[in-house]
């Protein structure tokens, strides 16, 4: 049986981290999928986001990203976007002031044709916080370079210990 969903690396945070980075991602797959569950820390409880930056050789911090998302709050639905941004606003998360949490919220990021040097890179993202918001996002990195580096960050203070982020390679048949 062909293996089409191969683990590349997984990080379970032992301590709080402002960002989580993958480097030297191999190019032998068709797509990449990152899935996991996270919670974030801030000076007050409330909504926050997970963001994505990518790059080749290093992470691109320039204004080379854009995104559009659909969001539900549990009472209303709306859509928003950002253009020429320095990251892709990918998924919702939630913050706490506590040092630990018993709830982590699932997310999935799909990096399409991540090593195809003929196309800009599209990223499909989903994230569901049962206590707050649901996101479905499409993001773009305006570069034809292959993705070898990925950083996940937050607009909160940090991604909490216990959060899990796993990267898989997907092969076409």
């Amino acid at each position, binding site marked *: 049986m062909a293996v089409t969903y191969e683990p590349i690396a997984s990080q379970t945070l032992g301590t709080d981290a402002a960002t989580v980075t993958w480097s030297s991602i191999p190019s032998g797959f068709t797509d990449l999928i990152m899935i996991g569950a996270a919670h974030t820390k801030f000076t007050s409880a409330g909504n926050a986001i997970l963001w994505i930056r990518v790059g080749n050789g290093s992470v691109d911090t320039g204004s080379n990203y854009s995104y559009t998302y659909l969001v539900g709050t549990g009472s209303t639905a709306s859509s928003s976007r950002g253009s020429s941004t320095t990251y892709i606003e990918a998924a919702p998360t939630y913050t706490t002031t506590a040092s630990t949490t018993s*709830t982590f919220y699932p997310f999935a990021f799909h990096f399409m044709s991540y090593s195809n040097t003929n196309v800009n890179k599209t990223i499909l993202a989903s994230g569901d916080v049962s206590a707050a918001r649901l996101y479905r996002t499409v993001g773009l990195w305006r570069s034809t370079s292959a993705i070898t580096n990925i950083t996940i960050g937050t607009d909160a203070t940090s991604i909490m210990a216990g959060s899990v982020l796993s990267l898989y390679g997907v092969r076409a048949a």
Partner: protein
Amino acid sequence: MAKTMKLIGKVTVGSGGAAYAEFTSIPGTYTDLLVTYSCRVDAAGYNNQASAVSFNGSTSNRSSRRLEGIGSSAASSTFASAMYSDITTGSSATANSFNSVEVYIPNYAGSTNKSYSSTHVVETNDATNNSIGCYAGLWSDTSAITSIRFTPTSGNYVQHSAFFLYGLTRA
């Protein structure tokens, strides 16, 4: 090379229909679970049906939120004491049309509360009764998940509804 996504259970609904679809005795040896399924119910109506989710037979400590677009508008709602995973077709919908659903459950055997994320689509070529949406669910219980049940909110699952459970292993 590690095999990371393994089929560990399937439920296919026969000619008599089924009041629910359930996976039991789920081993705790994987890191995450993924359920993919396609279903339709025999209740009257079009797309106004849903599947409720329960873990380990529990109907307590469940909550969920929904985000849904139906082709002309989008809406979101909160369920304070129920978990849902989809919108599906009823008996009035276009014949032979089923929904398609994916449910991701991270860290299902861990000691934290159990969250899940689901995405569904229903396309029936009907002018007003289609759906694309998602649910965020939370079972505020730290028990390892050993069984998962999907139950129509009305009626029974019809023949050819099919549910597949995969175990994921990360690096």
